[in-house]
């Protein structure tokens, strides 16, 4: 039982400390957002099953990323759609790049930046991420085409990324 408790305690700690990074890592390979959590679940289940197999000198997060990489590539490989099979190659290319914003893993890091957005941009972001609306529906509501919504969202994310980068740099400076 004590051994089980140690094992459980270790696992809980790893889970608490790494789940944001693992989710971001999976998303960073181009996995659809609605699949990220499914894959993250499988990553932790595999990790838990192989807890005793992890070499002591390998950091848990590195081990987790290794599992996640394999599961993500399998995800694309299993797809019946030709386009998604090409996205396996896209995932390999993306995986080689470092994950940006790892320092901003607490999602409320965005708050200061969201507040600075113009009203219309903020509304679009809320419709997309809070309401879960598709671009076509957002476009109908705001009198825009779906393509215009997609492009605008792309640019708003650029603005947010730059804002976050600046904030993190300020917080990190002495």
């Amino acid at each position, binding site marked *: 039982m004590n051994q089980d408790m140690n094992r*459980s305690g270790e696992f809980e700690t790893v889970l608490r400390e790494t789940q944001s990074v693992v989710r971001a890592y999976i998303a960073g390979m181009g996995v659809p*957002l609605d699949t990220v959590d499914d894959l993250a679940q499988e990553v932790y289940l595999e990790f838990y099953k192989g807890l005793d197999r992890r070499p002591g000198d390998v950091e848990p997060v590195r081990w987790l990323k290794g599992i996640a990489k394999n599961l993500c590539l399998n995800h694309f490989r299993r797809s019946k759609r030709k*386009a998604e099979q090409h996205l396996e190659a896209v995932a390999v290319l993306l995986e080689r790049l470092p994950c940006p914003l790892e320092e901003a893993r607490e999602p409320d890091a965005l708050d200061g930046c969201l507040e600075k957005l113009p009203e219309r941009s903020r509304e679009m972001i809320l419709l997309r991420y809070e309401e879960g609306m598709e671009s076509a529906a957002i476009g109908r509501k705001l009198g825009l085409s779906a393509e215009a919504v997609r492009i605008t969202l792309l640019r708003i*994310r650029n603005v*947010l990324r730059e804002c976050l980068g600046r904030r993190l740099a300020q917080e990190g400076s002495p």
Partner: protein
Amino acid sequence: MSEPLLAKWLDDRRSLTEAEALELQAALSADPDFARRVKDQLATDELLSRRLAVDRGSFKSQVAQRIANGATDGSFLQSTLDAVQRTERRRSSWRAWAPEAAVAAVLLLGLLGLLLWKEKTATVEIPAAAAPTGLNAQYFPNRFLKGKSEFRLDPRVDFTWRGRVGPFPGWSDIFSARWTGKLTPQYTERYSFRTMNDDGVRVWVDGKLVIDDWNGRPVVVENRGEIQLEAGKQVDVKIEYFNGGDLGVLRFFWSSPSLKEEIVPSSRLSPP
């Protein structure tokens, strides 16, 4: 790579055509700056989703907080299991899922055992004498479930018709079928049904349309649906299927929190 195409992919990762996916791949290989911008977009997109998806965020923080507090009392176990069960029922909905919940359930099951859960689950054994088993099948030599037909009793719905053949000698690979009968669940639980099908299928359980994919399919696809069932209480089941030609596949699975996924067995099926 054009901005509209990148925006399209970021908007829906499944929306690209094969040519567009190849274009994305080429652009990522050729232009490191572009690749970094894509990573930035993906990271911001994921961060926004975690920050703003209200229902999922609150659920996740609740579970995470209890894990962080080391709470391992029975109520947490049950609430976590409930969450996992909800998750399993709604796996396609990313808002409904939190990885901590499932993992915590595995962890706590390891600590406390499955007994608590099992005790709460009513089970009913089917009498050994229950016979005949399987479903009534009505096959039509067209894809519209109309006209003259052939009947037979199928013990289960697990078919692969390869080589341009139909369900009976001399039939073509264009046909349709309807299976009807009763289904007897073993547990009082939420059941998940899954089909692998090529081409179209519709499934009703207890009068509810749980799977609706009446479409021609170039490849085998999966469909899922779910419904709450009561241990031992027979419910109607009806499955309709068509094959528009070439390969024909229909496999009918079920699972529940207490039941590992399997082809619905003949012992749980009976003619009407």
